[in-house]
């Protein structure tokens, strides 16, 4: 086994580093792609265009509107005098929220009566809408506490909210991490698939099979470069992570080891795809088929908690789901193996099972 395997591995590595296209693609996925996504994509709810109709024109209404204007969530874009013109803005999509302060607002409050405020929110994007309404209510409450202190708040519970791991609740750090996880998945699947199918397409695989090399050696030689490359590619993305101020709280070594275990499942999927496809086109289409659901069920795009129960159970099969928890845990939360052991174990079980299965399929299909 020794010498033949060594020779074959050398051939694979040489081939790998000569293939400029694949190298560029990998580097692109781990760096530029991560940066573009982190800059462009955000679930942050900020700078929502706000239209205000102030029918009260009092000190209190002005101070309330000022609070909205300086908030992170809203940008005061329009000050209208008629409600109808403001709602037109909402209809056209120029404003996503309209705040109406009716006449007599300050008067009612100073007289100790209750006063009404009207909020109209564009609900098209339900996530933005829910957050915007919540934030608006908080601003109003803050204003009320300031303007009308001691308004009978005896014997009440007061929430003190603390956000851990990411105090500003920005999404860019999270997106950087999830894009790195996705890149690992894509490279892990596509690279072995492409390198095996290419030999099939060109017929060179037959030449390899007539040599004394065993299928096990061939299999190992095909998957090792991806494993090495997949782990090494983490390093350029560590730089990107720094740029976006994502801390590495936990242990880098643990992360590299768990990445290697995660790559086992990805590579196994790649080999399976290669075993069942005859052309590169088929292999790419099949990878696309497989990667899409895996990506969705990982929690990297949307939280798993918000999915319906059957998808949540299905997501337990996706190695990417555990890897997401691991990458967020190690980078943001400083989690160690003591905390992440169950995710690591799940990855190991899925990875080893898939790996053995793919070896079995590879042996049967190639011969």
């Amino acid at each position: 086994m020794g010498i033949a395997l060594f020779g074959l591995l050398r051939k694979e590595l040489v081939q790998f580093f000569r293939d400029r296209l694949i190298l560029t693609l990998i580097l692109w996925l781990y760096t530029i792609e991560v940066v573009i996504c982190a800059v462009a994509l955000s679930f942050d709810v900020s700078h929502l265009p706000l239209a205000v109709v102030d029918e009260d024109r009092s000190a209190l209404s002005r101070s309330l509107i000022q609070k909205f204007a300086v908030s992170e969530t809203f940008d005061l874009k329009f000050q209208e005098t008629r409600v109808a013109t403001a709602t037109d803005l909402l209809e056209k999509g120029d404003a996503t929220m309209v705040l109406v302060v009716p006449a007599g607002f300050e008067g009612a409050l100073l007289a100790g009566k209750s006063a009404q405020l009207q909020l109209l929110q564009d609900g098209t994007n339900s996530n933005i809408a829910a957050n915007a309404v919540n934030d608006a209510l908080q601003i109003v409450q803050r204003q009320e506490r300031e303007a009308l202190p001691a308004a009978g708040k005896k014997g009440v519970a007061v929430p003190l909210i603390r956000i851990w791991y990411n105090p500003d609740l920005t999404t860019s750090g999270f997106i950087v991490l999830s894009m790195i996880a996705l890149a690992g998945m894509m490279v892990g699947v596509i690279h072995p698939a492409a390198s095996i199918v290419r030999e099939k397409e060109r017929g060179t695989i037959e030449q390899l099979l007539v040599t004394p090399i065993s299928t096990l050696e061939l299999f190992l030689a095909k998957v090792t470069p991806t494993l090495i490359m997949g782990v090494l590619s983490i390093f350029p993305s560590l730089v990107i992570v720094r740029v976006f101020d994502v801390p590495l709280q936990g242990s880098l070594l643990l992360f590299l080891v768990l990445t290697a275990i995660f790559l086992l499942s990805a590579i196994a999927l790649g080999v399976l795809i290669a075993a069942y496809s005859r052309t590169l086109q088929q292999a790419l289409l099949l990878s696309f088929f497989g990667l899409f659901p895996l990506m969705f069920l990982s929690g990297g795009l949307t939280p798993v908690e918000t999915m319906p129960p059957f998808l949540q159970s299905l997501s337990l099969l996706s190695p990417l789901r555990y890897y997401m928890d691991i990458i967020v845990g190690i980078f943001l939360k400083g989690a160690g193996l003591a905390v992440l052991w169950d995710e690591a174990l799940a990855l190991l079980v899925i990875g080893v099972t898939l790996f053995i299965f793919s070896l079995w399929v590879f042996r049967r299909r190639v011969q």
Partner: protein
Amino acid sequence: MKAHRLGALIVKESRELIRDPVTIALAVIMPLIMLFLFGYAVNLDVEQVAVGIYDLDNTPASRDLSARFDSSRYFQLEQKTTDLRDLESALQSSTISMGVVIPAGLARQLLRGDEAPVQVIVDGGYPVLGRLASAYAEAVIANFPAPRQSAVRVQARVWFNPSLRSVNFVIPGLFAVILMAFPPLLTALAIVREKETGTIEQIYASPVTSTEFVVGKLVPYGLVAFLEILMVMVVGFAWFQVPIAGSPILLLTSAFVYVLTTVGIGLLVSSLVRTQLAAMLITLIVTLMPSFLFSGFLFPLFTMPLALQLYSWLFPAGYFMEISRGIVLKSAGLEAVLPNLMMLIVYTVLVFVFAAWRMKQKVA
């Protein structure tokens, strides 16, 4: 353009398409998979966030507060602990997304009429979840033990999607994404395949003109694309119960224009490259990626840096997304969608003119 030659070409292309079961399966199954994944998985309505409670008070009042979290539809009591370290490691391993610490003396403070602080620790690692969870937790605690009396009554009304259902927002956007995912790819591959296998030379040598050749390719693939959108629309409205506020006819008409845009892009790509692999990579870069990331599908455009906003204007998916969401959610009429529809028409014409010019150069 001769009718009989064109007819023969369309028949040839349709046969080729039907005899390729992998492609047919791809064209039919993939959009449905995408529809179901997006319809179910892209749900930003937070419910049942896992909560851990560390109750130092352990009085009827503190248990009442725990019960309020459990009975709220936004939270689910996952863990009750008597050790702060348990809460910490549960947060680290993402078993819970939020921890509530009820300090000793809560009941006493409430009885005395003081303010009683309750600490909430939110996992910021998953920011979308964290934001909503902290807002809901604040509401639960602020209304304990009795609903807070507020002098200002805020009357919040949500327009266009009053139930705030995510699917109502996701499905109409998905029409634009799905049509960008497959028709351009299939069209491009169909033409480039002839280049790769060399059969295109035979076409050039025959009396078939390049216009006939292109139209012959576009008709069957355009038809497939149109059937795709019909299928996705029917399933979206029937299965996911997304109500259409506006006119379905207007939606279908705009969809027809958009179908032309998508096959046109496939045609343009095929005129630029020689191999199927290159065609595939380029279509992914110019169609699927931007229609998913830079169309406002999930990620709002106005939060992006200006340069990327300008970049997003280069791709047609965003225009159709606005049309489709406008009609479905806001019951927009022809007037309201006209600017975006005009953009699509101009875009399509430009794509076709450019592709035809490239094709002519090749033939000559």
